[in-house]
């Protein structure tokens, strides 16, 4: 229809606009304006869509503004309610682009605000986690230094984290965690296992000085022998020790438990002892927070308790027997002392603090042993004390050694074979650093072992004394000194003037 008018004169083809209407009716305010009686002052009219609706521009703008302010209606604000056509807005804004940029950046800023908010929360969590990680890692480094001694620490780790091998960043923060876990009954592991497992095969930190030294050695063609220590030397290689320690630990625990039952006079149960865990934070404070974690009653023991009265051949005594049995179990001092684990602020602190102190204790015990070894050559041999390496730091690196063995000239099979042999020896024997350095870790481990045994002995003594105290406990009986004897119904009533016996005799 619109296509044909091209042939017709220009005046007739002009498409009519809102100004060509005879009567204009604003669909918003419902006011009319006839073409022959224009308003004074004139108001602008608009036809914003594709249908017959027209409106005062001011009315429509007011409507659009109002609708845009209501989020529920905003999407309909720029749409004709009748034909659904979109309104196009124009403005005399000299810098529409700037406005649009500002609008958009405002919207972006809102999004950025949300991101900052979420990011802030995330940062709090992450930084908390990271802080924890840092604390754990630096503690791990401290534990490491305590355990292996300053000399080896400077070779393997150093104080400069940028020198650390990658596994240090995994291994070190695990140390405090594994120390704490090793004290809980669920994880029966040797506390310093993570320390020992990956470090022996770890190579010296390649500091510039060391590299230079290694280079000069290879220049002078000095061969320092294998880069790994012997597997069956003395002290045992750390990996051997790591395999040995849990075994010894388990054996020790079993023997300790037997001894304890012997001393305490309790029957060993096959299950873990029943523990009645009482969380008692706040202690004697005004508002102690208490929670019972519940009694994990040992089912085997319960069954046993029920069976004992049934086997009793005197049925009349059944009830009594059962009661006694029950009381006997609960009242038995050793059992009572053992079965309730009271978790208080102090005990939790003791638990964690004690676990984290272990490397330091090991270090102290190690240095005590070191001092004692001065007076005993046997102990010195047992601890395998070596002079410090300070004067001649022979720290061979793997690469120069492999070169000196003609690794590059080997056939592929031989390469693989040699590599595997080196790797196996490294794992079992540890690096030469471990072998050549003064084995501080060894005497520290021995020291820690002695400490644990000593601590257990003290604990056992404490338990024994407590049990003895409970068993032999009596209430001290006093005389009636200070009490008016007249008020007491005595077998031999007190005599006035001290003639008790005589007056009685008189009556008889």
């Amino acid at each position, binding site marked *: 229809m619109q296509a044909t008018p091209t042939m017709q004169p220009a005046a007739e083809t002009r498409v009519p606009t809102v100004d060509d209407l005879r009567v204009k009716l604003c669909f918003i305010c*419902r006011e009319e304006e006839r073409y022959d009686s224009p308003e004074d002052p004139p108001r602008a009219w608009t036809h914003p869509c594709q249908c017959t609706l027209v409106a005062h521009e001011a009315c429509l703008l007011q409507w659009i503004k109002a609708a845009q302010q209501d989020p529920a209606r905003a999407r*309909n604000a720029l749409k004709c309610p009748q034909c659904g056509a979109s309104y196009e807005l124009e403005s005399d804004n000299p810098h529409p682009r700037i406005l649009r940029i500002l609008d958009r950046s405002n919207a972006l800023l809102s999004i950025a605000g949300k991101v900052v908010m979420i990011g802030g929360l995330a940062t709090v969590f992450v930084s908390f986690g990271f802080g924890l990680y840092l604390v754990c890692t630096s503690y791990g480094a401290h534990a490491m230094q305590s355990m292996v001694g300053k000399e080896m620490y400077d070779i393997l780790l150093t104080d400069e984290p940028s020198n650390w091998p990658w596994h240090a960043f995994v291994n070190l923060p695990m140390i405090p965690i594994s120390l704490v876990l090793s004290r809980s009954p669920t994880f029966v592991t040797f506390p310093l296992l993570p320390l020992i497992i990956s470090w022996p095969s770890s190579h010296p930190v390649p500091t510039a000085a060391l590299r230079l030294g290694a280079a000069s050695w290879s220049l002078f063609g000095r061969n320092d022998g294998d880069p790994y220590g012997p597997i069956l030397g003395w002290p045992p290689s750390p990996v051997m020790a790591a395999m040995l320690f849990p075994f010894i630990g388990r054996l020790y625990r079993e023997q300790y438990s037997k001894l304890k039952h012997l001393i305490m006079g309790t029957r060993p149960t096959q299950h873990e002892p029943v523990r009645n865990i009482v969380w008692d934070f706040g202690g004697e404070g005004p508002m102690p927070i208490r929670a019972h974690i519940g009694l994990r009653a040992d089912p085997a023991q319960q069954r046993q308790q029920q069976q004992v009265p049934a086997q009793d051949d005197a049925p009349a005594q059944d009830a009594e027997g059962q009661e006694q049995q029950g009381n006997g179990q609960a009242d038995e001092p050793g059992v009572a002392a053992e079965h309730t684990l009271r978790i208080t602020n102090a005990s939790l602190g003791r638990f964690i603090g004690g676990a984290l102190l272990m490397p330091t204790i090991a270090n102290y015990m190690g240095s005590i042993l070191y001092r004692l070894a001065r007076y005993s050559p046997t102990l010195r041999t047992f601890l395998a004390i070596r002079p410090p390496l300070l004067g001649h730091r022979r720290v061979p690196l793997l690469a120069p050694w492999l070169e000196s063995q003609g690794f590059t000239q080997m056939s592929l099979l031989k390469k693989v074979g040699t590599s595997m042999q080196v790797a196996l020896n490294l794992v079992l024997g540890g690096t030469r650093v471990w072998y050549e350095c003064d084995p501080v870790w060894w005497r520290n481990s021995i020291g820690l072992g002695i400490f644990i045994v000593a601590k257990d002995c003290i604990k056992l003594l404490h338990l024994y004394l407590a049990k003895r105290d409970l068993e032999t406990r009596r209430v001290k009986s006093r005389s009636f000194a200070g009490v008016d004897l007249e008020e007491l119904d005595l077998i031999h009533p007190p005599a006035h003037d001290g003639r008790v016996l005589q007056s009685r005799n008189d009556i008889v």
Partner: protein
Amino acid sequence: MAVSTRRLQKELADLKKQGTPVGIDLLSADNFEEWFLSLEVLGETVFVGEVFCLRFRFDSSYPISSPAVQFVVDDKWQAPMHPHVYTNGHICASILGNEWSPVLSVVSVCVTLQSMLASCKEKKIPPGNDRYVRHAPDNPKETRFAYDDDT
């Protein structure tokens, strides 16, 4: 004079001049704040023979803002039993909320509600009616209805 008054004057004049559509009657339009209209659904519907009363309340920005429309519930009038009409007379209809536009008027709202009732197949009160009625505000415009799209 407020825009709403001029517009309502126009609407009232049109109503009086052209008359109301069938089934709709103007009960009272004494001021430009509150009007009452009666509504009857004609033909074979579930509301046959029932007459309802609609109350319109206008604020000064009408028709930019929608009127508050509800069925009158008192000793004389009852609200229709309809899934979109609560027993207190509040109506859940999108044209009274987010689909209101100034092109609508008192009469067109009445006609729309009339057809809404006419298309009803089963007399049923809205789900959650009791809870809504217990907490409903006096002005239905203050309720944010969730409009389901059924025609």
